[in-house]
Structure formats: structure tokens, C-alpha cells
């Protein structure tokens, strides 16, 4: 065990994977000597060289397609796209190309690719650098979608994503990069599709992921002081989804709140609610709730961004409301 940040844990995962397997390499804008805008690739070029830690031009279509093509012929690329907001520039290569190869060849081809992208608001970055777009990816069969909330999971999920034979969209919350916690030493994987019970409780299930997990834990702590015990489930990956873990928790608590940072409409919270209603309707003591952002772009002013991020404050109110 060592205490390290989410960014350092991701860096360690890269080192382990690249030392173990010469097919693994990484590419992206400013990831070499500069170390990446979040320092996730810091020092990698010094250890592994310019051929395996590739600085790229600002050409998201070409570098994404290059990663897909390189994966298709048997290497194991890790692509960094600095902000998930930029995926619009290379979306065809993600959802039409990477996601389709296994299916359109009936299993004869695979794209073992990890696309790392930073998501999330809270830093006053404005409309083009702050969004949470995970629901887009979950709507594309063929992609896996991973969203770690802790340093230990960041490392273990990254190593699992690199091992996976499918294209994995790996969304890192930019507010979590500097968060420090205990991280196990050496190689280990956290399987995709296994949720984590971040806090146990019997009154309300709060399902969350990525940057919303700390909010859920804080609300749970505050609610506990008022005698309400929340169970906080960290999904870790949205595809594959640990539906059994969600259902099991709701069967225990009888109440469901899904809390995510992204906008409400068409957000992944709707999918979680729909699945719970289909499988555990009879266990529900009250209507399931979504606590998520209003349907607005992310404004630049911190005063306005706080409205977009109002989920944090509204979550505790929702917990109080659902048990009353």
C-alpha cells in the first residue's frame, strides 16, 4: 500500500502495463515530456521512449483512428483525449469504427483500445471543457464505459481496461486527479462490471459513479447524523453494468436515488431507474429519484457553475424527502 493521487495511480497502471507488455503504448496531445495536462503520463516518455509515448498533433480524428487501427492489427494503444468534450471532433472513429469491428466481423476482429478522457465540472472551465457525456457512450453497443471514483480503482480498472479485448472509454473526473488515498502495490485488476459498496446502509440506496461518489458519501454522512442510513453504490463501470448489485441494494433498502453530475435528461440515471423498476418494482417503497444537473450547458462563472453542480446540495434534501 502507498498513499497516492488518482493521477499517480493511473500513471502507475501505465508503467506496469508498459513494462509487462511491449505491445502497450500511449498517444495523445502533450503527453510526452510535458507529462499530459493532468500529469497522468508524467515520466513515461523518459522510461519508454518517444516510440511508445507519442506526442501527437492536435488532430483528434487521425489520432483516434490511428489508435483504432493500431489496436486492430494487434497492438494495445491507450489514447488520451484531454477533455471528453472534444470527442465530437473524432466521434466517428469512436462509435462507428472502434465500436463496430467485433460485431461487423462476427467476432473475427477485435479492438483492444483504451480511450482516456477527462470529464466533469467544478473548475470554471466553461461549456467546452466541463461536460459529463458518459450517457453518449453507453448508448453505443460495442463500447465499454468505465468511470473510477478512487485512486485504487483508477489503477485497478485501468489495468483491467488495458487487458480487455474491447474498446474501453475510460472517463476520469478532473476534480478527482489530486485526491489521495491508499493504493495497493504492484499489478492488480478491478474487474469491469463489479460495483463497489462504498458505504453500507439500510434506508436508502444512492447509486453514483465518478465525481458524484464523494458527494453521495458526504450526503450519507450528513444523513446518518439525522438517523438515515444510506447505502452508497459506486458503479465503477456503466457498461458492463452491475445490475445485480443495484437490485440487491434496492431490495434491501426499498428506496433508490441515482445521483450523477451529468444533465438529467437522457442521463444514465434514467437507465438505472428503468432497470430497477423492471426488476425490483415490488420492493420500492417510494418512487425512484434522479438527482442530477439541470439541462443546461456548464457555465463559466463559478457562481453559475454552482447551479449546474447544485446536485451536491440537493442530494441531502432528496434523501430526507424519500424517507419522509
Amino acid at each position, binding site marked *: 500500500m502507498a498513499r497516492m493521487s488518482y493521477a499517480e495511480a493511473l500513471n502507475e497502471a501505465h508503467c506496469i502495463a508498459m513494462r509487462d507488455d511491449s505491445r502497450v503504448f500511449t498517444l495523445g496531445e502533450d503527453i510526452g515530456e510535458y507529462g499530459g495536462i493532468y500529469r497522468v503520463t508524467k515520466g513515461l516518455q523518459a522510461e519508454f521512449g518517444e516510440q511508445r509515448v507519442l506526442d501527437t498533433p492536435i488532430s483528434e480524428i487521425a489520432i483516434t*483512428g490511428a489508435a483504432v487501427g493500431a489496436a486492430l492489427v494487434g497492438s494495445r494503444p491507450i489514447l488520451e483525449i484531454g477533455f471528453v468534450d472534444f470527442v465530437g471532433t473524432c466521434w466517428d472513429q469512436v462509435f462507428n469504427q472502434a465500436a463496430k469491428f467485433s460485431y461487423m466481423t462476427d*467476432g*473475427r476482429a477485435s479492438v483492444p483500445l483504451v480511450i482516456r478522457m477527462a470529464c466533469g465540472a467544478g473548475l470554471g472551465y466553461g461549456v467546452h471543457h466541463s461536460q459529463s457525456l458518459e450517457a453518449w457512450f453507453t448508448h453505443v453497443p*460495442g463500447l465499454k464505459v468505465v468511470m473510477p471514483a478512487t485512486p485504487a480503482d483508477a489503477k485497478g480498472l485501468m489495468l483491467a481496461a488495458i487487458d480487455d*479485448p474491447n474498446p474501453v472509454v475510460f472517463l476520469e473526473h478532473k476534480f478527482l486527479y489530486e485526491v489521495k488515498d491508499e493504493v495497493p502495490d504492484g499489478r492488480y485488476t478491478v474487474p469491469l462490471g463489479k460495483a463497489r459498496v462504498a458505504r453500507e446502509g439500510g434506508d436508502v440506496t444512492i447509486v453514483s459513479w465518478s465525481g458524484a461518489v464523494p458527494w453521495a458519501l458526504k450526503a450519507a454522512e450528513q444523513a446518518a447524523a439525522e438517523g438515515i442510513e444510506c447505502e452508497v453504490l459506486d458503479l465503477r463501470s456503466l457498461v458492463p453494468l452491475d445490475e445485480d448489485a443495484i437490485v440487491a441494494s434496492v431490495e434491501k433498502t426499498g428506496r433508490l436515488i441515482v445521483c450523477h453530475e451529468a444533465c438529467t435528461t437522457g442521463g444514465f440515471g434514467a437507465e438505472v431507474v428503468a432497470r430497477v423498476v423492471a426488476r425490483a418494482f415490488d420492493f420500492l417503497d417510494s418512487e425512484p429519484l434522479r438527482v442530477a444537473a439541470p439541462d443546461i450547458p456548464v457555465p463559466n462563472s463559478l457562481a453559475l457553475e454552482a447551479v449546474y453542480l447544485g446536485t451536491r446540495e440537493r442530494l441531502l434534501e432528496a434523501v430526507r424527502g424519500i424517507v419522509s
Partner: protein
Amino acid sequence: MPARKRTSLALSNEQLLQLYEDMSMLRAFDEKISERCIRGEIPGLIHLGVGEEAVAVGVSAALQPQDKMVSTHRAHSHFLARGADPKAFMAELYGKATGCCGGKAGSMHLADLDIGFLAANGVVGGGLPLAVGAALGQRILGSDWVTLCFFGDGANNNGAFHESLNLAAVWDLPVVFLCENNGYGISQSIHKQQRVANVADRAPSYGIPAEIIDGNDVLEVYETVRRAVDKARAGGGPTLIEAKTYRTTGHYVGDSESYRSEEEVAEWQTKDPIVKFEKVLRRKKLLSKALKSEIEERITALVEEATDFAVHSPALDPAAALTHVYCEGGV
């Protein structure tokens, strides 16, 4: 443009005859496919390569078995010329389980990794970045393949084209960009879509050498591509080759072709790549009438066998629609 050195790449008589037979075979398959598509047996959007066979055959002859190929929506000729199994190809078009992609790819998404044919593509320009990636993968894996990337003139106004050329140049990747310039992006002539006269004119701005060739001359295609492939394999970086050609059938089976005159099509039919090469072979006294008949018989038998195989292959189990969304070990 550098002077062409024809002598160093001379082909044997057997190889020359094979080029002729291959082009004729591609034509016969596309004619059969057109017939079966009109009859309603082959579903979907079908883009024929009639008139462009010299490009597919000349290119394939210039490649080594380990080389990779990335194609477009007009992929039949590329796929067959690269060595795809004709039966599995036809069965794929018919949507049968015996198809090379289990019926899930059809005409526009053909692939066979065993022969290095990575992907056709339903998206114009979609393949160019993939080809750069296949070349990058070669470098990472320490292999020695070259990636040949087909694209059409329609793709050269797409951002994927420009980004891909730049990236391949910056990284000196072993990729050959082969533009099949047939003059039209569906109904729009190339002159309505860009100010520069040639696709090749784009290449120097990315630091990539380019050549313009007669795409209906199979030997010129072969020799030019062979030099570019050899150069890329030796570490000389990418090349762009623009092969001027023409599709003498519509954009797809069923196209009204209202955008071009019969005279224009007729003029290009006089430049038919197969007829043109036949004359070359006759001048060399390599192709007698008897040999031509023999070749035609072989091709007819091959096309019939593949078509019969496709027609008589069992229908797909609908349950197959739900498989292989993810690779083994996936969800």
C-alpha cells in the same frame, strides 16, 4: 513527378496473364452481383467497381502477403483482388452464415484479417485514420508490413483525409494512400467540390510525395504502387498516388445517373481497363482467342460456384443478431 522505371519491375508472362484474368474475374463478379441485386436476391446498398478493375488488381499485385489493406464503400474489387474467398464473399452479400463476416458486414463493411484486408467502410474518409493506425501498429509491433489505403476523390475534402496525411507524414509511417479518382462523389463532379484540379495537389502541403497515374492502365498502377510500397517498407515514409479512373456503372445499383451524359460514359468505355490490357497482351502475343475462352470459362465457373454456394447456404439463425457485440471475455 519522378521518371518511371518500368524495366526493374518487369512481370513474367504468367503474371501478366494473371492480371488480365483477375480484372476479368472482378468484372464478372460485379456483373453477377448487379444482376442478383436487381433481382432482389442481394439486399442493401451495392457499389460496383466496374471500370475501375485495373486499380484493384494493379495494387494487389504490388503487395506482399503480410501487407494490410484498408478500403472504402466500393470494396468488392479490392477484396477479391486481395485474395478473398469468392464463396465466402458472395455468401456475405447474400447475408448468409457462411459469409466471411457471418452476414453482419455485407457489401460495405467487408473484412478478412487473415488476408490483411482490415476494413471496407460505410463512412467516406473513415478508413484513412485506420490505415495510419495499421501502419503505426506495424512500428509498435516491429513487423514489416505496409498498409495500402484506398480512398475516393470524395474523401479528399473530408477532415479525416487531411489529418491522416499529416499524421502519416509527421511519423514517417509505412502507408501508401491510393486515391481512386473516378470523378464523382455520388452525383457531384470533383470540379464542383474543390478548386485544386487534382487530389495529388494536396499532398505536398503535408510533405508527402505524390504521383498521378492512369488508373485504367494496370501496369502503370502496379509499377507505381510497387515503388511506393517498397519505399515505405524501407522506411521512406508515405506516398500518395492518384489513379484517374471512372466507374462506368452508377454510384450504386439502381442509380439514375442523371448527373452525367451517355456520351461521357461512352467515352470512358472506350478506355476500358480490361480491353486496354487485352490489346497489350495481344501485341505481345500472349493472349490467343483459345486462351481467352479458357479464361472466360474458368471465371464463369468460379462466379457460378460462388453464387450457387451463397444461394444454397442455409439462412441465418436470427439469434446470431445478438452475438459478438463484444469480443470473447467481454460483457
